[in-house]
């Protein structure tokens, strides 16, 4: 495992097809540069983002996970993000009880017009995660299970 000096965080972003993915697209067409540490996974809706995906992300070696979708009221499917919001409110509590590092799980509303916000958000999370270092606690769990 690399030491922290050469550490580049691995970040998984689960984004919705209609808002955040287009926001990322806009960041691209506007030539707004953001760190390449983020791996974007496009899903139909935040309502589709299964909590197991977050766990899977960490199992696959992510140092931080981002979940992002349409602002409340803007969901392409009317209410997917409202359902997601409830789910994450509860899910965060469970992860907290299990002792997860909560500053490695991020939620955001980023619309198709917010290319700038996308750039800033990804930059900010990457810097934060870089400062935190690798998610060794979870990696140990995965290593022990080889």
């Amino acid at each position, binding site marked *: 495992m690399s030491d922290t000096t050469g550490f580049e965080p691995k970040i998984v972003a689960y984004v919705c097809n209609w808002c955040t993915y287009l926001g990322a697209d806009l960041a691209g067409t506007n030539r707004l540069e953001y760190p390449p540490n983020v791996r974007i996974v496009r899903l139909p809706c935040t309502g589709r983002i299964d909590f197991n995906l977050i766990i899977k992300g960490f199992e696959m070696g992510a140092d931080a996970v981002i979940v992002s979708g349409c602002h409340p009221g803007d969901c392409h499917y009317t209410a997917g993000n409202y359902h997601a919001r409830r789910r994450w409110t509860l899910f965060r509590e469970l992860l907290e*009880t299990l002792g997860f590092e909560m500053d490695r799980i991020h939620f955001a509303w980023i619309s198709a017009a917010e290319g700038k916000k996308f750039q800033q958000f990804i930059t900010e999370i990457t810097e934060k995660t870089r400062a935190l270092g690798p998610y060794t606690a979870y990696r140990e769990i995965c290593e022990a299970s080889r």
Partner: protein
Amino acid sequence: MIDQLRQTCKKLLEEGAVQVVIGYGQDKPSMMPHPVFITKPEDTDRLVWNDLCFANLAAYVTRKEIKALGKPAVIVKGCDERALVVLEQESQFTRDGIYVIGMACDSLPASGMGNPRAAKCASCAVRTPRYADVTIGEAAVGSSAVGSSSCSTADTEFADLDEFMKKTPAERLAYWKVELSRCVKCYACREVCPMCYCNRCLVDKNRPTAIDTSATIKGNLAWHIARAFHQAGRCVGCDECTRACPAGINLRLLNQSLAKAAERAFAYKAGMDKETPPVIGSYSLEDKESFIE
């Protein structure tokens, strides 16, 4: 109470009002009561009722094998009954398709026997069934009122969890690493749970494998997260999973953290009132979102 219970069940079976009674049987007084399925009126003498009747029989109402027997009468305590309320909300049966025999908890069960039931009984708000077709016995004086469907709970309800949450996140993870390393993935927690009625569980699917099926700490953690979260806002806190666990893992803590979150964030308590929309599956525009950027 036992005589009254046996008489009631006998009558139901004789009249043909139900085809099977789901109740408790006990082979010897020193042994734990176990579920029995009575189909003949003369067998109702096998039914028992005592302080050790822990099992939540609501779990059997959704089973294919039991449904095949015909209309069931199910014996429930006030706490088990909450599971029936959730199951009806989720359209797992129609209310007139089952007969509910409620047993009032007339005394606090013996505590300090290391039995996990005592933990939930201490803060019980439903000693008297509210949903039953017939209720047998009376709740002890001083216990909570009949028909209480309010969300307020005793401060003691989440005492264990609150104590546990005083630890740092790293200590909590260390605790679960030790606890969950004992899990052998027998899935007793799933089998015994009234809310786990899926014909095919996520963890049994292997195309693709959603959750690592090996009984390693990684697979166990993923499984227990999935198990607990699939009960989010549905778990009625019967603690059967904790009781059934052969490794003695305190799954109650995980269930409680979700129950507490549902109560604090959405003023929702599973199985208290069947008119309240389930917390997962409904939403409000006013839901708080301080954690979302």
